[in-house]
Each structure stands twice: as structure tokens, then as C-alpha cells.
């Protein structure tokens, strides 16, 4: 049943798509090198999982996951307001280490390194989404809605302000734009979408542990954003599909069993390098990496 396998991959693509376009909003459009994005994903996943296990309905888990992540997004915006480029990257990376350490050590709440197994699948309007096909529909609807919202934000007049801050913060402040407020909103909105992606992830995989929310897990998302091209939403979609499907397609190449692990990684890396040599700005990138 090749369908079951494809449905599974499409669900993961949907979840990563939400994660990637929300990072695209902060990194590509607003120029915030937010390496703490994976922490919002983790906060969302844990919030949703813990609420679901204490009996709350999926809708409440889902929304609270987004809102709690958003609150942390606003909080992160305060101390990092004046940081730019590499410094912002380091500070937000620090944030993701803090969140990881809390997930790992607050054992009473998160069960620490043991992780949380048995997270229930969503039940919507009395209809249980325990089979993967209905979960795929849910993921697709949420991914499309997220895409639409972020698309509208970037096309609005506010979207122009966001991009102007990326290109020249001082100039846009001279024109009377409040850059702190704008950056906080963007960080909050992007954290909200990472949070709901986390909620979907937790209820789909049904098991989470802190190791799923480390810097290493951010790398594929960051790759999607860069390969897709900064400040390009269609590019992000294309890159999500390619970067999620290529490693899986490489499972079918049929390497000799003794080199199957390293060969897959080497080929995958090679494909990425070739893409970036020929398309240094990514597929549809409009701006250079800061």
C-alpha cells in the first residue's frame, strides 16, 4: 500500500510546511535570523500534548499551543530587540537551548528525557481522526490556512513595512515606522504558527521527547527556507516537497546494505550542494542571506 506511505509523508510535509513558512516570515521577510524557531515548535508540541493528556479537546489544545508559543515569541522579542544578524542568531539560539533544558529537566511536568507517549489523536466535532487520511485532510487545511494568512500579511501594507525593516531598519524608523513593535508582531505571529505545527506533530506522532526539539532539528527547516529562497513563499513550498521527499526517495536506490546509511547522507548533501551552487539565492530567492 504505497498510498499509506505517501499519506504519512504528506502529513509530515504539511507540518514542516507550516514550520518553514513561519520561519520564512521572520527570516526571509523580516530579516530576523531566528534560530529559536524550533523552541516554539517544542513549546507548541508539549502544550498540546500535556493538555490533550489531561482530557482537553483538540481544538483547545491546538489553539493554546499556538497562543503559548506566541506569548514566548513576544517575550523573546523584548531582549533581542536591538540585536541584528549574527548576534540575533546567537541570542535566539540561546533561547532554544534554554527551552530544551527546561523540557529536559522539568521532570514533574514534561517527564524529562523519557518523553510523553500515548498522546491521543484529535477528535473534531465527535469525529475521531485516528486514520491517517483524515489527519492528512486536517493538516492540509491548516497548512493552506497558514499559508494564506502569511501570504496576506506579506502582501499587505504592513508587509512592506516588514520588508523595509529587513532592508534598512534606520530608514524605516526615520519614516516613522515602529520597528520594535513590528519585529515583536512578526516574532509572535511566526511563533504562533510554529506552535500549531508543534501541536499537529505531537498529535500525529503520538510521542514527543526533548530530542525532537534541538538545534539539530532546526537544520532541515532552515535548509528549506534557504533552498526555497529568502522571502519567497512559493519557493518554500517547492523546497519543502523536495527536501522532505529526496531523503525518502533515496531509500529506494538500493545501495548495498553495508553503506546504506552514509551513502544516503552523502547523496542528499550532494544534491543540496548542487542546488546551492547553481541557485545561490535558492529557487525563487529575492534577497541575499544576511
Amino acid at each position: 500500500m504505497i498510498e499509506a506511505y505517501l499519506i504519512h509523508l504528506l502529513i509530515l510535509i504539511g507540518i514542516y510546511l507550516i514550520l518553514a513558512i513561519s520561519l520564512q516570515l521572520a527570516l526571509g521577510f523580516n530579516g530576523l535570523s531566528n534560530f529559536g524557531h524550533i523552541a516554539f515548535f517544542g513549546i507548541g508540541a508539549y502544550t498540546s500534548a500535556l493538555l490533550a493528556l489531561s482530557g482537553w479537546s483538540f481544538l483547545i489544545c491546538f489553539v493554546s499551543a499556538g497562543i503559548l508559543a506566541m506569548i514566548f515569541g513576544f517575550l523573546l522579542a523584548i531582549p533581542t530587540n536591538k540585536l541584528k544578524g549574527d548576534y540575533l542568531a546567537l541570542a535566539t539560539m540561546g533561547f532554544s537551548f534554554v527551552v530544551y533544558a527546561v523540557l529536559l529537566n522539568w521532570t514533574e511536568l514534561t517527564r524529562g528525557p523519557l518523553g510523553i507517549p500515548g498522546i491521543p489523536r484529535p477528535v473534531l466535532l465527535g469525529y475521531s481522526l485516528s486514520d491517517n487520511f483524515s489527519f492528512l485532510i486536517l493538516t492540509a487545511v491548516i497548512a493552506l490556512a497558514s499559508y494564506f494568512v502569511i501570504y496576506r500579511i506579506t502582501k499587505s501594507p504592513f508587509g512592506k513595512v516588514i520588508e523595509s525593516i529587513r532592508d534598512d531598519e534606520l530608514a524605516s524608523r526615520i519614516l516613522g515606522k515602529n520597528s520594535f513593535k513590528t519585529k515583536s508582531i512578526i516574532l509572535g505571529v511566526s511563533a504562533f504558527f510554529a506552535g500549531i505545527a508543534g501541536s499537529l506533530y505531537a498529535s500525529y506522532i503520538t510521542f514527543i521527547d526533548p530530542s525532537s526539539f534541538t538545534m539539530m532539528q532546526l537544520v532541515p527547516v532552515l535548509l528549506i527556507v534557504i533552498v526555497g529562497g529568502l522571502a519567497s513563499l512559493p519557493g518554500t513550498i517547492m523546497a519543502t516537497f523536495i527536501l522532505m521527499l529526496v531523503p525518502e526517495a533515496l531509500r529506494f536506490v538500493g545501495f548495498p546494505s553495508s553503506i546504506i546509511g552514509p551513502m544516503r547522507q552523502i547523496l542528499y548533501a550532494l544534491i543540496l550542494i548542487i542546488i546551492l551552487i547553481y541557485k545561490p539565492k535558492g529557487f525563487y530567492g529575492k534577497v541575499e542571506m544576511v
Partner: protein
Amino acid sequence: MKSKNNWIIGIMIVLIILGVVYYYQSQKKDESVIKIGASLPLSGQNAVYGIEIQNAIELAKDDINNNGGINGKKLKVIYEDDEADTATGTNVINKLVNIDKVPVVLGSWASGVVVAEAPIAEKNRVIIMAVAISPAITHAGDYIFRIQPSATFYTSKSAEFLRDKGINTSAIIYVNNEFGKSLKDFFTSDFEKKGGKVVAIESYYEGDNDFRAQLIKIKEKNPEVIFIPGYQDTIEVIKQIKELGIKSLILAGPPFESQSTIEKLGKDAEGILYPYHFVAGESNKKTQAYEKDYLTKYHKTTGGFAPLMYDATYIISDVLKKCDKNTDCIKNELYNIEYKGISGNITFDSNGDPELPIFMKTIKNGEFVKY
């Protein structure tokens, strides 16, 4: 702009065609082979364990196929790399279950991956035979078995042994991940249940290499024994214990037994205790033959996970002989099996955990020996 993307789309199409061709190839009913899957960390920092386990499976598989296979059919193992990552693990199990349609999946080695794979295997009635230590796997499902004893077996044996020796106080320095933390928790409760006292608990992160701050705190409490549940980092902890002149006994975790330990520690390794499920060179001819075969084929001595998976591969081949691909039959047979393997007499309890004897071992004259 778009034309420049053509070659990328070209590559995608080629890959998709390859996939489809492979899919139809694999759909051809090949009656002369029986396929099982294996989900292991074959790349990344844990690949060293994944490859060791893969070697053992290959060794057992070749033996089985040279001796008539499964009722005349060849056993074939499809390896997939799960990178010890939960999301990748779910990709692997979905592929093995839905595309290769295997009745049995060997692995994984990472406990988190097994817990994430379990619901999918359970739903599709596919057997998982893991080699992971977390107690969470005990209740992961009916179709979920493992060949590695749960962490609790190791700690209760250690606690009992220490109390019998009249040791009253213990300190723990553990690696803060699922593995280290479960061993720490179980050791604490086992040791205190038997009347001992844990006087200090310290932790470190994977990849740390300076443990002096934690060790000095432990030194102040002057425990009779220090328990170190960790992986390869245990070696560095022990070096620093010796450097700080701490005289306590040292109790290491199960992964302590590997060739690099003795090479790197030299005479500091002498007298270190650890609980283990396998005594090399002992008991039966089968064990010795296995060790010799492993050395000849891979030019290194076997680690601790390999003998377990070697036995598991034989156990699976035995039940496949009786059940072919009927997984309900395989499941029932596994609960009733009694297998004399190289790591001891193996049976499974009603949770799918192995009932293997655990020994206390130590290092004497540069060799791993039973205490």
C-alpha cells in the same frame, strides 16, 4: 527563471521513476525469499551501535541461509536508516510496513524511535524486535518485543550486589538523556529500597567533557560507590575521578563493555564494576564460534548489542519457519519460545521483555570477566 529549475525537476522525475520501478519490482511475488525489515541508526553519532547490530544480523542471516534458509526460502533483510530520530523512525516503519510489507522489523536501537514506531506497527500487526533499554517499551504494545533487558533489570541486580557487599552509600553522575535518567531513577529506588542511601546525584549533558565540578561535589560526600550510567563519556568521567583522587568504588552502566574502554583507560579500568547480560568466551561453544566468526568477518571484537541481535535474528528465523508471514502466529510463538542463544537462555515475559540473566562483571588484567 523557471527554465533554470528544469534540471531540478528532471532529477525529481528520475527519482520518482526509480521509485515506481522499484515499487513494481518489489511487488513481484518472489516466492524464493522471505523479507524482514531492520530500522537502525546507520548514520550520525550513534551509527557505531547501528552498524555493530547490522553486522550481527548479517552474520546470523548468512548462517541461516547457508543452512537451508526458512523452509527453503532465503531470508532477506531490508535495512533502513532511522538516524535515531523519532520522525525519521516513523518514515522508516511506514516504508517497511506499507511498501516492503515485512512481517517483522528488527530494531530500533534508540528507545524514543521504538516508542514512536510502536503504534504504527501495532496498528498494522507487525512485530517489532527492538534492542533498546527504556522501561517505556515494556508497555508499548502486544506486537512489540525487545531482546535487550529493560534498565530496571540492570539496576536491581547492581543494587542487590552492592548491598550484599555491605555498601551503604552511593553517589550517581548520569548523562541527562532518556538512557542515563532511567538508569539513575531505577538505581536510586532499588538501592534505597534495599536500605542503602544515595548521597549525591549529579548530571551532565551528552558531549560534555569536563565533569570536575560535579565530581568535587560528590567527593565531599565521600560515597562508597559512584554509579555512572553513560555511554562512551563514562571513560572520561572515570579518568577525572582518578585524577581527583576519589577512592570510591566505581559502578559503570551496561554500555561500558566495549573494546575502546580498556584501550583508553588502561590500568584505571581495573576493578570497575558493571552489570551486563553477556559473558564472553564463557558457557557454550556457540558463543565462542560466534565471537570467532565476528572477528574474522569484521576484524573487530563484538560489542554488547551485537550478540543480542544475533540471537534475535535466529529467534525470528525459527518462528518464521513455523508461521511464515502470519504475524499473529509469530506473536504467539514468541511469547512461548525458549531459545538457547549465545547470550543465554532467552524467553519473553507477557510484556515482550526478555528474561535474561544479568551478571555483575569487572575488569581484571585488561579483560572483561564475571565478578
